[in-house]
């Protein structure tokens, strides 16, 4: 039976990471609000209160959803390492995951600057809320497709940098090279051959964030399917 080994536990104060997480949440909220603010100005005054509060509630939930990537990522890394009989502590994983988000802080900062100074919204004023929501949707689509702000390209760069950073931190801070070398005796012999040639610790460190991002994409795809296609395939039309 394989004997698990303990990954090193750093002697770090978590307070600064807690502040970083709070800042991430606030930055997410601020970014969404900065992008939506110019649209909210077009909402007729009597509806503006409920529209603003509802938008903020929605943004708050969306931001929590994005912050939830931190505990999810920690659970994912913990499970990955658990499977190869390495026991990592929450105290070591939390700083790694939070630091890995650094590229997204920069991206969010850029988006706020764009939303405040460069985003141009020009809609035809109307009191018809239904028509206004359609116009806003069309304008948001136009903004995205026009490429005025290359969100998907910058988002991909941030994601790739974040994956690289996470892999590097896992490799360095958990000392994966020596942990893997220590565990090799309990694994199939061909893995030993791979390790001698390719540094298995680095491969595992890269695979963990890559599979995490892959899982998030699959989850996103599946939830999209659930939201649209399944209703149609089950022939579940809204009741009349």
């Amino acid at each position, binding site marked *: 039976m394989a004997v698990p080994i303990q990954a090193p536990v750093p002697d770090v104060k978590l307070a600064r990471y807690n502040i970083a997480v709070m800042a991430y949440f606030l930055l997410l909220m601020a970014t969404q609000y900065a992008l939506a603010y110019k649209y909210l100005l077009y909402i007729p005054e009597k509806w503006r*209160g409920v529209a603003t509060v509802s938008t903020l*509630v929605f943004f708050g*939930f969306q931001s929590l959803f994005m912050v939830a990537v931190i*505990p999810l990522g920690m659970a994912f890394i913990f499970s990955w390492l658990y499977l190869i009989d390495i026991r990592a502590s929450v105290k070591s994983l939390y700083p790694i995951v939070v630091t890995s988000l650094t590229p997204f802080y920069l991206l969010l900062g850029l988006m706020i600057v764009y939303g405040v100074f460069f985003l141009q919204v020009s809609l035809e004023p109307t009191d018809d809320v239904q028509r206004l929501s359609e116009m806003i949707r069309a304008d948001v689509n136009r903004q995205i497709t026009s490429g005025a702000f290359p969100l998907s390209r910058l988002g991909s760069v941030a994601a790739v940098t974040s994956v690289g950073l996470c892999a590097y931190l896992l490799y360095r801070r958990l000392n994966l090279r020596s942990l893997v070398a220590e565990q090799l005796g309990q694994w199939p012999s061909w893995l030993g051959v791979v390790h001698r040639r390719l540094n298995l610790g680095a491969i595992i460190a890269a695979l963990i964030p890559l599979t995490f991002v892959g899982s998030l994409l699959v989850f996103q795809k599946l939830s999209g399917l659930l939201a649209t296609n399944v209703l149609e395939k089950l022939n579940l039309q809204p009741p009349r």
Partner: protein
Amino acid sequence: MAQEQKYFWVMLERKRFFLCLAVLVGVLVVGALVGYAVPLPEDAFPRQDVLGASTAMQDVRNVRTFRLIFFNNTRVFLLMAVGILTGGLLSLGEVFVIGYMVGVFSRMALAQAMPLPILLAALAPHGVFELASFMTVGALGLYFASRIYGQLKGHTVDWTKEIIVYAKVAIASYVVLLLAALVEVYLTPTLIHHLVT
């Protein structure tokens, strides 16, 4: 050796679990209050024809409506279940949004001059089961986080047993959710119609 517990929910640390549940109820209430306090344009909501609406509701008491409602509730339930892995973070947000929707809906209904007993009949019978189901699964997330914290403080946790208990609680909650959808589709419209006529 410790005696095997007969009921799975006894394996939860009840005091801790109820504390988590209380936190979620608090967030739900805050969400509902925020939703209720939102300024709504009163003139945008004409007086509702309650009798007409309750009659129309009789026509949608069918399997198709049940499937639609149950399917939508299942999506929220699944998100709550994923929330366990996030230490209740998602659950807190989701419960706040649910509370907010209830608050806004109640405010709109009262702006439409809907009598309070009818509003309660429309929300409470299925809402009790639905919220109980969502809150229980949501509380598991906070409970999970507190158990991790406990382990960091040196307490021993048997995670295999823990996961089995969570799964059983989640399945039991899902059955309650099924009951909620049945009540919503088959009982609530009858109750409202009875009150109106």
